Every structure is written in C-alpha cells, then in structure tokens.
C-alpha cells in the first residue's frame, strides 16, 4: 500500500517535471534568433509562402498561445507538429527513428551492465590480481574518454587498420532490411529467420555500442568492486564463514545481492544517458536513429522536432529514475523500512 502510494506520488511529480521541461525547452526553441519559417524555406521563397508556413506553425501568435496550442494538440491528438526538416509529423519521425536507437541502447546497455559488473565482481574476488589492475586502469581511462573519442579510435583501428567492422549506417549496401515488426533490425531478422541480415545488423551495432558503453562500464566496474570489497570485510561475512558456509554460497547468496545495490542504483541512469551520448555517436557513424535525428534537429533549428525529441528523452530519463527507486527499495529492505517510518 505504502509502496503504491510512493510510486503514484513519484509519477505525479514526474508529470509535473515533464511539464516544466516542455515549457523550458519551448522557450529555448522559440528564442532562436532569425525566422524559423524563412530558414526552413530558404532565402528565395516568396513572402506569401513564408507567411503561410508561419500561420501553419502558429509563429504569428504570442509564445504562451503557441505553447497552449502545442500542449492541446499533444494531449488530445498526440500531435507534436510538423518537422521543418523532413516535412512530416514529428511523432511519425520519432516512431520511425526510435527503434534503431532503442536497439543500440539495449545492446550497449547489456554490454555495459554485464561487462561492468563482471569486471567489478572478479576484481573484488581476486584483489590485487591482474584483473584487478586491469579494471583499475580501465576505470580511469573509460571515464576520462568521451564516447566520440572511443568511436574515432575504434573506426581507425577496426574500420581501417584491421578492417573487421563496418563504420557507417545500420546495414551494408545490398542487404535488404527485414520485415518491419519491431523496427529493431536484429530482432526482426531473427523473427523472420534471416541470418545474413541479423549478422550484418549486429556487426553494425558493435562499434557504436561498445564506444557508448565504455564510460558507464568503467563506472559500474569501479563501484561494484569497491562496494563488494567493503562488504567482504563486514562482520556478517566473517560470521557466515565461521559457521562453515562455503565461500561460494556466501559469495552468490549474500555478497552479490547486497553489494550490487550501489551499482544498480546508478547503472540504469547511465543506460538512459546513452540516448544522450548517442546524439554525437550516432552522428559520427551515420546511424539512422532518434539521437541522430535529434542532433540534426538541433543543428538545423527544427523547432518542433527539438521539442518532440527532448520531451521523449526527458520522459525516458524520468521514468528510469523512478524505476531505480523501486528496484533499490525491492533489493534493500532497509530503504523500505525507512520509508515506512517517515
């Protein structure tokens, strides 16, 4: 009961925050110097065409009225307006580009979580071993290196010096995209049993996915290691081994669960932030996803597209924060108790 109330309260707050975000981004997108209609149509467009477009986008109205119309259209029809760049409704663009980015984020997120936690656990278990030293060095470099730098280095190494991975796009030329089911090429090609496409799509994902994952991976490894090392020195571990509980089951049953809490409370946020880091990474490898769409919207000052993409990202990010609280409360009974007490 308490938990349900807690979740509902967080959701209500999240909606409030998203409203605030939409106002913020609406203002930011509207103070752009220059006339967006003129920019969209080019310098040679006749005056009446620009006047029409301006009317169509409600740019002739004051900003609060524009915002009101935008909110009304969004809430009643799910309409986010027309993109000036693609000349299509923004919500359709988002629907089209989202699966590609989601696919990249999922692959990258899985890689980040699995490798990060594994490295952290192994280096905590075998302290001062070579894995531990490797993890420490990797953690420093992983956090200090922007994803675009990883990507540029990967392209140089695995695209040119030792060309084993494709450097641009989602599929090689000559390979037809699979039937649209989820929009994620790897899953769709698996569902239709098309192994060649699956393999090709996967190869295209590897480089951007690993480049994006490096930062979060290093952080996860570092946090997991230090948390687990702390827990290993706790009294309950000594007690358990004094009772003769085998090391293996102390490790699997007790240590793993408790010492992963700090990692789990930060990892999902790192994964959600991949959408943001993708803004640059997807542009570098020309990967046709939502983040690249967002980046081109920002660079081309495509008002409605900027607002649309940012609201979607904000919603994802906010939901993930709530999700983290729920998972942590589930894993750590102390958090639940404190909440009940207050």
């Amino acid at each position, binding site marked *: 009961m308490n938990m349900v109330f807690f979740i509902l309260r967080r959701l209500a*707050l999240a909606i*409030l*925050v*998203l409203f*605030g*975000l939409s106002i*913020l*981004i609406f203002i*930011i*997108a509207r*103070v*752009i*110097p220059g006339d967006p209609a003129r920019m969209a149509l080019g310098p040679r467009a006749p005056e009446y065409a620009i006047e029409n477009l301006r009317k169509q986008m409600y740019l002739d109205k004051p900003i609060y009225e524009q915002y009101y119309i935008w909110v009304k259209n969004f809430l009643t029809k799910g309409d986010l307006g027309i993109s000036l760049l693609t000349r299509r409704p923004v919500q359709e663009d988002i629907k089209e580009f989202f699966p590609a980015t989601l696919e990249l984020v999922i692959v990258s997120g899985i890689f980040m979580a699995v490798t990060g936690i594994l490295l952290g656990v192994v280096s905590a278990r075998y302290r001062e071993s070579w894995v531990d030293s490797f993890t420490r060095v990797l953690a*420093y*470099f992983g*956090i*200090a*290196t*922007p994803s*675009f*730098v990883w990507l*540029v*280095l990967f*392209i*140089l190494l695995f*695209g*040119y*010096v030792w060309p084993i991975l494709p450097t641009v796009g989602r599929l090689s030329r000559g390979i037809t995209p699979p039937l649209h089911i989820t929009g994620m090429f790897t899953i769709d090609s698996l569902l239709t049993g098309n192994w060649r496409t699956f393999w090709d799509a996967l190869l295209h994902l590897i480089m951007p996915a690993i480049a994006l994952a490096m930062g979060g991976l290093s952080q996860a490894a570092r946090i997991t290691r230090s948390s687990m090392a702390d827990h290993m020195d706790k009294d309950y571990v000594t007690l358990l081994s004094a009772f003769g509980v085998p090391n293996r089951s102390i490790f699997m049953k007790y240590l793993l669960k408790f010492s992963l809490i700090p990692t789990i409370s930060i990892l999902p946020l790192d994964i*959600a*932030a991949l*959408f*943001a*880091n993708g*803004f*640059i990474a997807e*542009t*570098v490898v020309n990967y046709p996803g939502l983040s690249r769409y*967002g*980046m081109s919207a*920002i*660079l081309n*000052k495509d008002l409605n597209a*900027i607002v649309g993409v*940012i609201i979607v*990202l*904000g919603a994802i*990010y*906010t939901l993930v924060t709530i999700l983290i609280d729920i998972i942590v409360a589930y894993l750590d009974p102390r958090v639940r108790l404190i909440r009940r007490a207050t």
Partner: protein
Amino acid sequence: MEVRKMKMPKAMDFSQKWDNFKRLSHKFSRSRISLVGLFSVVIIITLAIFAPLIAPYPEHAGAFVDYAHASIPPCREHLFGTDIMGRDVLSRTIFALRGALLMAIGVIGIVTPIGVIVGLVAGYNSGSLVDTILMRISDVFLALPSLVLALAVAAVLRPTLFNAMLAVCVSWWPWYARLTYGLASSIRNETFVQAAQVIGASHFHIIFKEVLPNCLSSIFTKMALDVGWVILIGASLSFVGLGEQPPTPALGTMVADGARYLPELWWVCVFPALVIVWMILSFNLFGDGVRDALSPEEA
C-alpha cells in the same frame, strides 16, 4: 537584566590556516597517483598559459596556410604532424588547451555560486514554499542528461566559446543546488545553528557564516571532481561545432575535422583525441586526490 553583545568566535588566523593546509597537502600527497594528477595538471596549465612561448609554431594557431608543408606525418619538425592546411598539429593542440581550460574555469566559476546559493536558501528553508519551488525548478533541469540540454541551448545561441560555457552552465547548476541543499537542510538542525537562532542572528549570518562553512569541503570536492566532466562536455560541444569557431583551435573540432581524413591523415585527429583523454584523466586523478584529502573519515 543586562544584555551583552554576543561575541562571535573569530575566524581562523593565518597560522591555523597554514596548519590546515599542511595537513591537507600531506593527506593529498600520500597517494602517488594523486601526485601524478597534480603534476599533470600543472603541466597542462603551464602549457596553456605560456602557449605562445612553448608552441613550436605559434602562428599556426590562427588562420595560417602553408600548402607546401601540408599533411606531413609526425616527424622531428612536427611531432604531431601537420594538417591539410600545413599547420602544425602540436602547436594547435597546445593552444586548444586554453579554450578547454577556460571552459572549465568559466563553467565552474559561474555554476558554483548560483547552485550553492539556491541550495543554501532552499535547504535553510526546507519544507517551505521557497524550497519546493526552487528544488522543483532544479528537477526540471535534471530531467535531461546534461549533454542534451547543453547541446540544445548551445545550438540556439551563436556558436562561441562563451556561449558554449553558458549552455553547459544551464545544465550544470542544479547539481550544485542539489548537493548544497542536502547538506544545508541537515546542517540547519544542528545545535550550533539553533544556538545562533536563539541568540537572534540574522538569516544572512546563519546561512553564510554558520551553514556555508560546513558545506565547503563537499563543494570543493565536487568542484575538483567536476573539472574533468566539464572538459568532456566542452569537447563534445566543440566536436559538433558548437564551441570555439575556426580558425581558433579547439580540441573537439580538431578531432572532428581530422576524422574526415581517416585513415590516411590519422595524426590530425588521434593526437588531439589523446590530449582530451590526458586532460580529463589528469583532472580526474587530481580531483580524486582532493576528495580523499577533504573527506573526514580516514583510517
């Protein structure tokens, strides 16, 4: 009853401060890796300040063209090679350190006072309407990964180093507000704050003389740890062309330009990229050292 004027305890005098400093620097220097960071940071700052004296070809930092010496791979005259315009990559990289450092100094210099004041005011009045309004506003800014917000703001403004700085500030102040808020809202329940209230000290006095000094070590730690992050975001902004404009060199821009000539002219992009990593790494190591020196619980 005689009302005596309350004497406030005096601030630390110089010798106490010096002792404090010696203790902190001792704690800092116990970790060899923090010293490496410090050493590296000093080198970076020196290179940036004295760039015109240190760079082998200072004139190459601007709009300089010398096609006769274009695209030379790394050699003794040009350690990092030259780009397609014949400009020395090493010289340009050294000059680019200036922008990256200015970015970090500017952002942290602007963001810290704003965030700290918001956090102090909200935390001191925690539970009130002011608290709710200020912290909900900062939540709005935190509802997006900072890179996206910075990109959106930077794109709206004209692309200059200063505007890139502002853009990062917009997405960065809430972190300081939130940190100070957490500290202030717990410190205000301490007995020394209540004592000051009972004596009748002004809110201004309590916030800045009682609460703030007790937040400082956490704030300094965050500032030290943030330098690397700000440099990273700044490099990302300049990578997409939203920072310092050519011909002035910027690390991100150099990587982006160089990436177009991969793999033949690999040196044009690889060296600036490695310098970005070196810079962030040095500041992170230094920041870790500061954190360890300032953290109270130490075995």
